[in-house]
């Protein structure tokens, strides 16, 4: 059972890391606009035409 002391602490740390990643990405604007990226991904890459 004593292993749990360490394991629970670790699981909490990992969960905390995910929380921080989420907060960090929100701060960077990741969730400000959830609509435009869905359109943007459909744009084709440039075809370079020669005149």
């Amino acid at each position, binding site marked *: *059972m004593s292993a*749990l*002391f360490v394991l*629970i602490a670790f699981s*909490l740390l990992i*969960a*905390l890391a995910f*929380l921080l990643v*989420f*907060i960090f990405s*929100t*701060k960077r*604007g990741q*969730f*400000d*606009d959830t*609509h*435009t990226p869905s*359109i*943007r991904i*459909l*744009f*084709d890459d*440039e*075809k370079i*035409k020669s005149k």
Partner: protein
Amino acid sequence: MANTINACESSVHCYHCGELCNQSFHFDDKTFCCNGCQSVYQILYNNQLCTYYSLSNKPGLNQKVFTKNSYYDFLDQPEVIDQLIHYKEDSSLHISFTIPNMHCSSCIWLLENLYKINPGVQSSVVNFLNKQINLVFDAKQISLKELVCLLKQIGYEPQLSMQDLESKGQQTIKRTWLYKLVVAGFVFGNTMMLSLPDYFAKGNFLNDSTLGLYFNYLTLVLSVPVLVYSAQEFFLSAWQHLKQKKLNIDTPIALALIIIYLVSIHAIVIQHRMGYLDSLSGIVFFMLLGRYFQTKSYSVLNFNKKYSSYLPIAVTKWNNKKEESIAIKDLNIGDDVLIRQHEIVPADAILIHHEAWFDYSFVTGESQWIKKVKNETIYAGAQLKSGVATLKVSKKPSASYLSQLWNQQNNAKQDDKLLVTEKINFYFSIAVLSIGIIASLYWLLQHQHARAFTALITVWIVACPCALLLSSTFTYGSILHFLNKKGVYIKNASLIEKIKHLKVILFDKTGTLTTTEKPEIEFIPLVQKNIAWNEIASLTHLSIHPLSKAITSYLKPSSIFDVSQYESKTGEGIHGVVNKNFYQIGSAKWLQIDEQSENHFSKVYVVQNGNVEGYFEIKNQYRKGIAPLIFSLRKQYELFVLSGDNDAEKNRLQSWFKKGHLYFDQKPEQKNAFVIKQQNQGFTTMMIGDGLNDTAAFEQSDIAVAVVDNKNNVLPACDMIVQEQSLLKLDTLLAYANKSNAILRISFIISILYNAIGLYFAVQGKLLPVIAAILMPLSTISIVGICFGLAWFYAKKIKT
């Protein structure tokens, strides 16, 4: 490269904007309707950005109306730049614009490829739903003015209004919401996990092992951020109301949260038992979720417009006989300003020009243009319709009649009445609390002191009005959400309650009952002869006046002739020579014709070589399906028409509305008085209009509904925005909003049931943390499910 202008078959559509070409411009084997569209194409072609045209069909917007580049001269002033930009690093400036023209994926693509047109643009990112573009540009390579002009050139003129100078920072509010929510969610999940072993071991696990103690202290530490950060707003709002000696919906919540936490500390530290901390973070998480959901659905729309958002940022000032563009806030009394056609007067001013025509519809609601002569006062908000006018500013823009009107209305409208559900909720919590006191008194009389204490405390925990609060936030939230999908945007939940009491609906005629486009036109000949329609159309299509446009689209010319000596007299008419015939097309007054007919329809006379040929009669076109809507609404509500126009349409409207319910030639004050009269009789009043006229009556009414079409991106200040095509379903949509009653009742019953179960255990002093931990999420999830499910079910039944 062939670049020609010639008359052509009119069935060709413009390659850029898709409009029918009357006159065509050719470039690169493509046809364009006007020089503007062609030049946009040229810019894109030269920068190899023609992918724009392959992403969606005819993505461009018509470029016939153009503002001069010199209008943007004020953007060269350092103070204006400082106010507009977000921040600055070296020479790169960060700025964001609202671009009303943004409407399809091509727009996104082009705007995000701006750097190909001008390398000075370092980054451009579009937020499509907010119609916003965030730009980073190098001020050394491209100035702010050049940037705005570039956007304008490619057809995406940014909207620059006074308001942009004043407020920023909506994003951060939304983000803070999210932070609070995730913190609460994180703690909820983890404390729940740490509590589970105890629940499974029926309460024996944590009591006697060091591991249990360790878990308990962990939950205690984890809950701190929930209490001090996530639940902050409950405490703040409760405290603010307490300071004013008032109780609000957040008072019992704040109280319950503190009690739960204190009881849990007591249980963990002294009694070495489990607390109710998982329930605590769960309550906070679900309540935040409900509020987030409710605010999210309409965060995109800006309902609280200020008068300043209608005014431009800058104006042209006459300074020592030189034109100079200055920011409106720098405008001083006594300055001479130059207003061009279609520009808005920024401040109350005196006309210096000998005469000019103004459209006052925004200020007073009158749709007729008004002629003003020298030395008359022009109020801010009026739009100039005739050529150019010079004005002398008589009041600062912030002191204008318009801004006073605006502030007056806004002060009058601010009321923070409790929602009915909030009231119920409040009384409910008081009732539960008194049950708790009675229960503990009972146990005290039985001399079971410890039990009396637990009973009191646990009843308070149950009383945390979580379930009830959630049922209203989620019901209203989901109804708002589904109405959004149907094209109706409502400002906030309290309006849904107002809709329940709705008695009187007032209609504005123009733009509401009638369509904004395509009027019904008839030509009434006054002489017996064949009329050369194409010659008339050749003339009218050159003019941008709405009546000329309507006549052109009515005539559908098969060919267009060259026009010489063309001249347009604003507010009067046009004349020119077509095929050696001299035409005059315009008002009877201008052409000095005696009007004989009695009706008041707009008439446009046609005179060929001095002989009156006849006139076009232009009737308003009513929206298709408006009559069934009116008959359906009549069953439930009292309907009135308040029109600022003359009674020309009286006969037609009379068949739809009750006798005596039609009011014509209404001045804005009369409309306002009418609304007040209805309200004094205790009727909840809704006014439906295009929202740009009649601001006074509009703001006075309980529910101001603005009808907008998709092309018109100007959102007026109002309570509800209805898209044009949704207006015809207004009856079913109102009925749907009223369904909230039924949904609320059902979810109330369920939450009371859960509360009863909780109370059953609590009054006996037997509410174990495990019961609380089961009841709380179960009740929340079932209520959320029921509210959303029923709202979805009723929404599905609305035919689209």
